[in-house]
């Protein structure tokens, strides 16, 4: 890490060869928070000095640029690179706030079928030589865009909300991911009050079905909508609980945080009794 912090231009072609990690952020179901998660984890990892490239694989319906507030700075996109019109350096957009973070935007006026899956895999592979982390924001669904997005990744993060439909879709995606070296889970948009009242699945309910190592849990917060509208990831806000949760997840990804993920749950009666009788707090 130290060596990387001293790197004057992370991700530039003159930077020393690395072997970064390629992680796809996927879910099956749309609207569960893949893009928000990609933006926040990418920003959080870059804040620690790591060189991070984010790829928006949602050709035709890109949004990662908006969530990062970079939409006005996108000049070229991933298909321009894949089709040889521009170099990678001409397409990578440097983040406004975190200099070690780069975005490779998706083409907005093209189709996912235009992307050659093998070329995409090769692109991710070449990015791994220049970045510590390559995070790929996968589109919803399990069509060609999904195949393109997962091709170059050897790790996957499943984002799932505590809803039966999202869990069912996530379970299907875990099957399709096959033998990745690592598939881990983020449970997003948990509402502890609804869980307590039995109106929402708990993290345990979700993971009883998915059975994945838990990277972290994010509580539902209206601040996420505001941050998306502003193009300002919450990890940049020290006062935001969501930002802190994403920073903790980034730490677990990097291996610097070995703590067990905290589940934002109000204490149950059993837990209260447990602590009363000298059990674990």
């Amino acid at each position, binding site marked *: 890490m130290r060596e990387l912090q001293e790197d004057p231009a992370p991700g530039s072609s003159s930077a020393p060869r690395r072997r970064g990690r390629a992680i796809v952020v996927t879910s099956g179901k749309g609207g569960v928070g893949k893009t928000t998660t990609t933006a926040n984890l990418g920003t959080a990892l870059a804040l620690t000095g790591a060189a991070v490239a984010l790829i928006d694989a949602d050709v035709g319906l890109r*949004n990662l640029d908006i969530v990062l507030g970079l939409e006005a700075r996108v000049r070229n996109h991933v298909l321009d690179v894949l089709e040889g019109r521009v170099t990678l350096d001409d397409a990578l957009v440097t983040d406004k706030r975190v200099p070690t973070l780069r975005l490779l935007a998706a083409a907005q006026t093209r189709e*996912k079928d235009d992307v050659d899956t093998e070329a995409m895999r090769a692109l991710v592979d070449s990015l791994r030589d220049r970045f510590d982390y390559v995070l790929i924001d996968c589109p919803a*669904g*399990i*069509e060609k*865009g999904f195949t393109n997005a997962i091709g170059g990744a050897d790790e996957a993060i499943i984002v799932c909300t505590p*809803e039966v439909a999202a869990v069912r879709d996530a379970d299907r995606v875990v099957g399709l991911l096959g033998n990745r070296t690592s598939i881990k889970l983020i449970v997003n948009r948990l509402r502890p009050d609804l869980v307590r009242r039995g109106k929402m699945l708990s993290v345990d309910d979700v993971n009883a079905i998915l059975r994945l190592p838990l990277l972290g849990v994010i509580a539902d917060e209206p601040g996420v909508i505001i941050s*998306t509208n502003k193009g300002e990831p919450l990890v940049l806000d020290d006062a935001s609980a969501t930002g802190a949760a994403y920073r903790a997840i980034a730490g677990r990804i990097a291996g610097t945080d070995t703590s067990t993920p905290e589940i934002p749950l109000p204490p149950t009666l059993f837990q209260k009794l447990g602590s009363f009788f000298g059990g674990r707090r």
Partner: protein
Amino acid sequence: MSARRIVLTSGKGGVGKTTATANLGAALAKRGKRVILVDADIGLRNLDLVLGLEKRIVFDLVEVVEGRCQLRQALIKDKRFQSLAILPAAQTRDKTAVSETQFAEVVAGLDELCDYVLIDCPAGIEHGFRNAVAGAAEAIVVTTPEVSAIRDADRVIGKLNERGLPIRLIVNRIRPDMVRTGDMMSVDDVVDILGVKLLGMIPDDEEVIDTTNRGEPIVLVPDSHLGEIFEKIARRLEGENVAFTTLTAPGFFGRLFGQRKAG
């Protein structure tokens, strides 16, 4: 008499297409209309779950297309409404298992069986989208008041315009308190940007999470204001002129008396 064939689509996932399809279908059925809901999300079906019909599935859309069962055999009657049925998607196949022509043929086959065919489109604008749209003569675009959802909706509206489908808009998951503080776009803003006719506006409400998990249509929940909203949307779809009421954040008295207005 031929059925109205309407696709519910959005571009972005998770904005409420499936919930809207299920509840609008139930609202139309409650009015005595014969309604068939088609799940076009092959491989990631969920409409069956939202209506609590997942255990009753025997055949699916792909099996109809492949001639392994009759269309009528694949239809699953709703538990609560006699005149509501769903045609489930296959779960273990992918969207390329059905062509646009085949999809349109299946939907055409439903024509004489009902008054409304509502097609629940998958997220995205890939093959599954093209199939769902191929079966439809009208479109309802569902969006939320968020920049990313609106950008995707705009792209989808462009694609629907290319096909000449009439489009109406449902703005979902509005939070009047956030609109008031300027942290969320208003419905007027959304309608201005997208330039399509408004069919309904639905506030963000945790009731949806619960009823969806339980597989129960909201129009059956007594005194549910979301149920009322879907009934209004159904009436508008039927050509009735139902006025929109402003969505307001509940003030002190509103909270006290449980008053909530919505369109």
